[in-house]
């Protein structure tokens, strides 16, 4: 449609970035479906979540379809609820333990991949990809089978290792134990991402640099700290924040494992919002909890974007 002559127009900045210049309605028409669907589904949900958090919204309002504004009542109620603070602390501890385990073990396995010979590396990669590919729900079902009270493999294995008292042990009997299994599950599922990406990054570091360091008598730890860590710093930072965000909002793993139980002792913030909303029909309070969760996530995310933008700036000359 556009005559080729237009490209020769004296539009210096556009020519520099190497783009064609059909201004007018066409680009807007092309992005309209994407903008509209994002706005109507995601944008509206985010906005309405905030609106509902300022409303009295229970079973009665759900049925009568009326709107009753309540100011900060929901927030006051949630923030005065000791359960919320317990859950907040639990969520942070759960997230921290998961992220530390994922990053440390993932890094070790990534470094190991870098040291292995071809065959062994392929074997380990395949095993990692298998764990990575496992869908969430089949994995939670699988873990509840491995940790089954009566016939679970783990109780037998604990016996083999010589621990007593694990006969018919109920792993889902306490909140801590349930969350420990959720941790095991999430760490198992998340390590492959870190390890394989770290390995991919390590292959871009030339081998001479390690050699030189070894020649100078550097230990493995020193090589990691003084060579790998500085070079891969953006990777470590970005991945850590990705994992923080992912674990913090993890819902399916925790909920499907034990429904937040026993007696709500393994709830994390997203699970608590779900149970307050769908279980107790306290939609206003649930919205307030999810707004607070979103604010926490926003903090982590803004730092994540800061990292991404910084890295992009550094990559461009």
């Amino acid at each position, binding site marked *: 449609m556009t005559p080729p002559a237009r*490209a020769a127009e004296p539009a210096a900045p556009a020519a520099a970035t190497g*783009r*064609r210049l059909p201004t007018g309605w*066409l*680009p*807007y028409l*092309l992005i309209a*479906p*994407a*903008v509209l669907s994002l706005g109507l*589904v*995601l944008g509206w*949900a985010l906005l*309405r*979540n905030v609106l509902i958090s300022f409303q009295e919204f229970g079973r009665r309002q759900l049925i009568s*379809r009326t709107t009753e504004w309540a100011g900060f009542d929901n927030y006051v109620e949630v923030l005065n609820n000791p359960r919320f603070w317990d859950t907040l602390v639990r969520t942070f501890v759960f997230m921290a333990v998961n992220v530390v385990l994922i990053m440390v073990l993932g890094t070790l396995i990534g470094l190991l*991949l*870098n040291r292995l*010979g071809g065959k*062994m590396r392929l074997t380990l990669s*395949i*095993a*990692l*990809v*298998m*764990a*990575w590919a*496992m*869908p*969430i*729900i*089949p994995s939670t*079902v*699988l*873990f509840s*089978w491995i940790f089954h009270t009566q016939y679970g*493999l783990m109780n*037998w294995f604990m016996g083999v290792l010589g621990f007593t008292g694990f006969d018919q042990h109920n792993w889902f009997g306490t909140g801590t134990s349930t969350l420990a299994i959720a941790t095991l599950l999430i760490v198992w599922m998340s390590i492959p991402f870190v390890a394989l990406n770290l390995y991919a990054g390590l*292959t871009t*570091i*030339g*081998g*001479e640099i390690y050699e*030189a360091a*070894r*020649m100078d*008598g550097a230990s493995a730890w020193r090589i990691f700290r003084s060579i790998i860590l500085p070079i891969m710093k953006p990777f470590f930072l970005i991945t850590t924040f990705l994992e923080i965000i992912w674990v913090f*909002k993890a819902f*399916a793993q925790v909920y499907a494992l034990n429904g937040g139980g026993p007696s709500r002792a393994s709830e994390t913030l997203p699970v608590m*919002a*779900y149970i307050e*909303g769908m279980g107790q029909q306290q*939609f206003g309070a649930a*919205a307030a909890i*999810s707004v607070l*969760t979103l604010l926490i*996530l926003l903090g982590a*995310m803004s730092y*994540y974007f800061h990292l*991404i933008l910084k890295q992009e700036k550094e990559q461009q000359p």
Partner: protein
Amino acid sequence: MSQDTTAPGADGGSGSPEVTGPDGPSRSTAAGPTGAGAGGVVGRLAEVNIAGPHGAPPPSDPVRQTVAGIPRTPGGGPSPEPFRRRFQRIWPNAVALITAAIFIFPVYWMIASSLKQRGDILTRDPVFVFVPTLDNYSTAMGADLFWTYVRNSFVVTVCAVLLALLVALAAGFAIARMEFKGRRGMILVIMMAQMAPWEVLIIVMYLNARDLEMLNSLLALTIIYFVMALPFTLWTLRGFIAAVPKELEEAALIDGCSRTRAFFSVIFPLLAPGLMATSIFGFIMAWNEFAMVLVLNKAPEAKTLPVWLSSFQTAFGNDWGATMAASTLVTIPVLVLFLILQRRVTGGMAAGAVKG
């Protein structure tokens, strides 16, 4: 950069006998016959070439270097390997083997359990050797509404992915190739939307769907999954479109193609890897999605496979063989796609097409 890294190496050639690093000793002997100093570098390069054909970047691989270095020992006769060296060569492999076993074991256990007879499953001491049976699979497939769930999952997933591809192609083209007001803002919105915490929005999604009378509908799920997959799809396709040289498209335009024709006959074929990667990603995301279905579709016939599987106790009671068979069935499509994705996307077909 390369200057900096080779310089200490050349110095190290003469001083290497003192080096206590894992492959220090072999290096010093390798450098021996060719002399000290600069000769050390030559010796090292030769080693690199020996190790090269095996693939992977050789210098970062101390194990293989040591192996490659051994035959070059001067003075003939392979001296008995000290224990420390043998240990250092073996331990990474041993640790890797154990790690691989840990990662693959749960998957193995799922498949093994799905193939066991009832008597081999419900035992206190696990049975490792057993006569396999497919009974569990027929139980799983014969479960109430199983095929409805399969259909629901496929319909929702495929429709969402196709919709996302279509919308993302249009918008991705505009962002990659056109200059318009609000372009930067759009890029920012897409990046943010990629991180959208959907799990935290399930309550409000329930209320929205209820107001629109779209509870228990596959359409609502399709729309949500489409929007979930859209940002990543858009972002990735934008990158692929931007990577197609403008000259290719211009050549087509000069030859008299319309813009639409130029897009479909020049750009589109080069997007194949991008289309594949994004559609596989979208498929896995939608196939695995759990929270939305849990909240929106409570009616049994409107559920999808993950939610059905999560309520396995109502479906199968204590029949863990059937439960594991169902888990395996849900896993298989994802596993297959994952393996394709790993192979294809890292291959970088686009690079070849453009450079060739």
